[in-house]
């Protein structure tokens, strides 16, 4: 009788302590994970005027809250690719001497179509569509 009572009490005490700790930890673990803030879906941005870039030059433009690398390869040829390196998230740049895209972080190279040429990046850069509307450069997602 006393033994059964003792184990019941021990069980209640242990269970009580355990569940109170769990009830503290649950809100804390949920608290430290940041809430999902849905980003406004952007499908098209006006990057600027045609004159903003000389041929064989490039700039980073904002596409929503993501950087996009806009390249004016020649007088008429424009390219836009995500500027986020597929390796570990650095922001890539255009190399005007070799006409390639370069990531300084671990020496990754891509061609102007986003294909990996050398270095550690595992995937190609996503390409965007560039159109010239009047004298404005418009970038849209997906082909």
């Amino acid at each position, binding site marked *: 009788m006393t033994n059964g009572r003792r184990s019941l009490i021990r069980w209640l005490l242990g269970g009580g302590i355990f569940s109170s700790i769990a009830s503290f930890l649950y809100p804390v673990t949920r608290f430290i994970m940041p809430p999902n803030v849905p980003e406004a879906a952007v499908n098209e941005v006006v990057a600027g005027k045609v004159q903003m870039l000389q041929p064989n030059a490039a700039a980073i433009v904002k596409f929503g809250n993501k950087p996009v690398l806009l390249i004016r390869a020649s007088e008429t040829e424009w390219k836009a690719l995500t*500027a986020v390196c597929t*390796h570990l998230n650095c922001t890539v*740049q255009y190399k005007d001497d070799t006409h390639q895209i370069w990531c300084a972080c671990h020496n990754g190279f891509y061609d102007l179509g986003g294909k990996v040429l050398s*270095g*550690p990046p595992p995937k190609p850069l996503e390409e965007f569509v560039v159109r010239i509307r009047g004298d404005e450069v418009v970038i849209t997602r997906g082909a």
Partner: protein
Amino acid sequence: MATPAPGWFDERLGLSSIRKFVAHKTVPSHSGTMWYYFGGITLFLFVIQVVTGVLLLLYYRPTTSEAFESVQFIMTRVKFGWLIRSVHSWSANLMILAAFVHMFSVVFLHAYRRPREMAWFSGIGLLALAMAFGFSGYLLPWNTISYFATKVGTDMAASVPMIGPYMARFLRGGEDVGGATLTRFFGFHVAVLPGITTLLLLMHLGLVQRFGISSPPKLEGKRIAQMPFFPNFFLRELMAWYAALALLGVLAAIFPWELGEKADPFASAPAGIRPEWYFLAPFYTLKLIPSHIWVLEGELVGFAGFALLAAFWATLPLWATDRDGMLRARRVTGAGILLLAYYSTFSILGYWR
């Protein structure tokens, strides 16, 4: 009557037992004794970190619009601000260096042996915390280099299968490195990490106290000369602290820590980007790993490799003896030399390339 004041305190604080304890404490004295100073040097530099860190807190502001400017303000307007910040940065680096020396001396003197395994484990924990301090503190000035280093570092966490994306979100406080990351890293750097470090440090020092200082196995069975801890060892340690302080002062004054340029999330990563020197070896390794190894992504292979290496190293006391408890001294020394060789050559390559 004896002096009344010490008696009064003694009764209330138990000073004489402390005095008696200190009087009996000794340190083995042999050709390797100089290596015993490095744990103390690490501790000393940690205290400097706490003091200068608290001072920097008086002016620093952890937001993307103000962090860089507030550090700039500290360095240009606040009296001796450049010195305090420079000392904080240099001392952080020297502290990690001293911790490395301490760790390798423990390996080569085989001081991790039974019953000191827990001291080794807590020491590894402290080293990991020191690196977490370094990684989180690196971002706080919100300059370009630190911004991209944090992007790469947190993205490495994301490459872990299953839990990786959660870890990255937890670290960044959102999808990408930004203001939320800065606030978080600030919280880690000035509250979470110091708290955990203090506990672990007390444990580490308590264990050193409990088991005393180990002497190398080759001297085992021989009579080893002992030097009293107080004042002999203590005064020598004090001189070591002065030496560390002198080095720190020279470095901080002659090579003030640079601030660089303010981070811009819409700018390309500049050439010459690199992390703090103690992350250079993994950084350079990442550069060499091709995009795919067999069917796996290179970064995943790299990350798994580092994790395995860290686990192997952290559990050193467990594989350092054979089943009969005999020390495999050769194997441990060899592993130590290999790790040291990999770490230093890759760090140098990572720096120059």
